[in-house]
């Protein structure tokens, strides 16, 4: 089936056996994001640390309700981001966003994105891009708050954009 280009085995694996799931202490920021269309939601925490004078991602933990794409995407994201410097993580998240907006025409960098390259097929289904981005948008919000110390927000993830 054509749809298997979206539901790659690696995505279904992450969906059935999510990594880094469950909210953990300690953390520097916590956010709650909702997809207003379907009501999918994610609560996400991020902890930062110092890595040789540069901020880095010590931990990303989350609790979520959602479809296979949103669940697998959050799992893959934590694998891709934990341990990276914030600068590296921003690059990865930017590359993932670009991949999601590519309508299947991108040539994703597997070294950069890891398992997240498997989401290439999702970009061909516009209605599902929001699902794949839910966790990533929550992360972007959380890391911004962790770095500038602003209070936790409640937000809705907009398609391909920032939370509002």
């Amino acid at each position, binding site marked *: *089936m*054509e*749809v298997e280009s*979206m*539901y790659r085995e690696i995505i*279904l*694996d992450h969906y*059935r056996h999510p990594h880094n799931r469950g909210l953990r202490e300690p953390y520097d920021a916590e956010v709650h994001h909702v997809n207003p*269309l*379907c*009501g*999918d939601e994610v609560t996400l925490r991020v902890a930062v640390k110092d890595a040789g004078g540069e901020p880095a991602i010590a931990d990303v933990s989350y609790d979520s*309700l*959602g*479809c*296979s*794409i949103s669940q697998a995407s959050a799992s893959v994201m934590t694998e891709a981001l934990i341990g990276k410097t914030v600068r590296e993580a921003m690059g990865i998240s930017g590359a993932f966003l670009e991949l999601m907006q590519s309508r299947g025409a991108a040539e994703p960098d597997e070294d950069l994105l890891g398992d997240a390259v498997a989401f290439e097929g999702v970009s061909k*289904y516009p209605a*599902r891009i929001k*699902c794949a981005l839910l966790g990533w948008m929550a992360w972007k919000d959380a890391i911004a708050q962790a770095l500038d110390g602003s209070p936790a927000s409640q937000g809705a993830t907009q398609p391909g954009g920032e939370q509002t």
Partner: protein
Amino acid sequence: MTTTPTHLPGPLHDPAATRPLDVADIRADFPILGRAVRGGRPLVYLDSGATSHKPRQVLDAERDFYTIHNSAAHRGAHLLGEEATDAYEAARSQVAAFIGAQPGEIVFTKSATEALNLVAYAMSNAATAGPQAERFRVGPGDEVLVTEMEHHANLVPWQQLCQRTGATLRWFGVTPEGRLDLSNADALISDRTKVVAVTHQSNVTGTVPLVAEIAALAHARGALVVVDGAQSVPHRPVDVATLGADFLAFSAHKMLGPSGIGVLWGRRELLEAMPPFITGGSMIEVVRMEGSTFLPPPQRFEAGVPAAAQAVGLAAACRYLDALGMENVAAHEEALTAHALEALGGIDGVRVLGPLTTEDRGGAVSFEIENVHPHDVGQLLDELGIAVRADHHCAWPLHRALGVQASTRATFYVYNTHAEVDALAEGVRQTQRFFAAA
């Protein structure tokens, strides 16, 4: 409810008065049903609750209007203007006849959503209107009563009305079976209740609340009754004379008509007294720099150049449905619904939301599949050519009340077949196999 219900559960139509629809014949009128979708598969369209398809009779009526009569209705000193006005007003009469109303009681809006907002905003505008608007006024101490099963279109406008005026929002809950819980109706409907807004058929569970009974209780306390008919008017006979409501809202695009036009029916004496919502051209009587006076209804509520082509298309949809016979439409959908309830209910791991029989239940069948998210169900069904809706269907509180985050919904209409219901059930089984844990 201590009040004795006068309603006996039963079919939504008179079974003795129906004849089967010739679905093959009907399908031939809908060009879109002939197209292929993913992988060249035939389209199995089970999303008419979101929007219906349009028969060529409706498309032709709109095209003819634009081709032959196009002009701005209710203005213009020329022949085309006269013809456009005649066509628009004839459409109003056709729509009125479809629900047993008078033409002067039919207000064209852009959608059912706008029709409901029209009443809600007219009620807050009543605060600064003359004494004739007294019965539309709400403020602190007053109550607006809705239900937990409303579509957001018949909930959020009332929340906003309360926010603007200081009135209090209250609501009927739902039972675990997805019926309206009327056990506390006598407490909820009081002298403080100014308006009761209730759906005529849930867009999620198909539940048909006892609108006439609720309306009787509301009227006994002097409250207005606003009914959301978006999911009832397209699917079964609706007669405003027996409905019990003061206002009824519905949309053309869910009843084989064009998008961009909806209807508000209101009792004439209420429309006469109600202040306007949207103001501007076409709705005024005299305009001076210091202020303006307004036309009688329905023009008072139709500011701007009317959507005449859409009204003409809606009238053609009414004629199409009248020719089929709304009793027959209701019977056809009841048979499909019964089939779907049985076919889906018989699959392990599938839970149908709402009533499990067709008694006081229309043709919206929402369900959840254990361990498979509705988005994933919708995606797999789409792959098989089956179009369903998969989210909270603009009824988030109802989903919360039923203990689910979202659901997959199949809705039926005149062109759907029993084979399509079987395809849905088979698609659900395939979806389960696809997502079964490895």
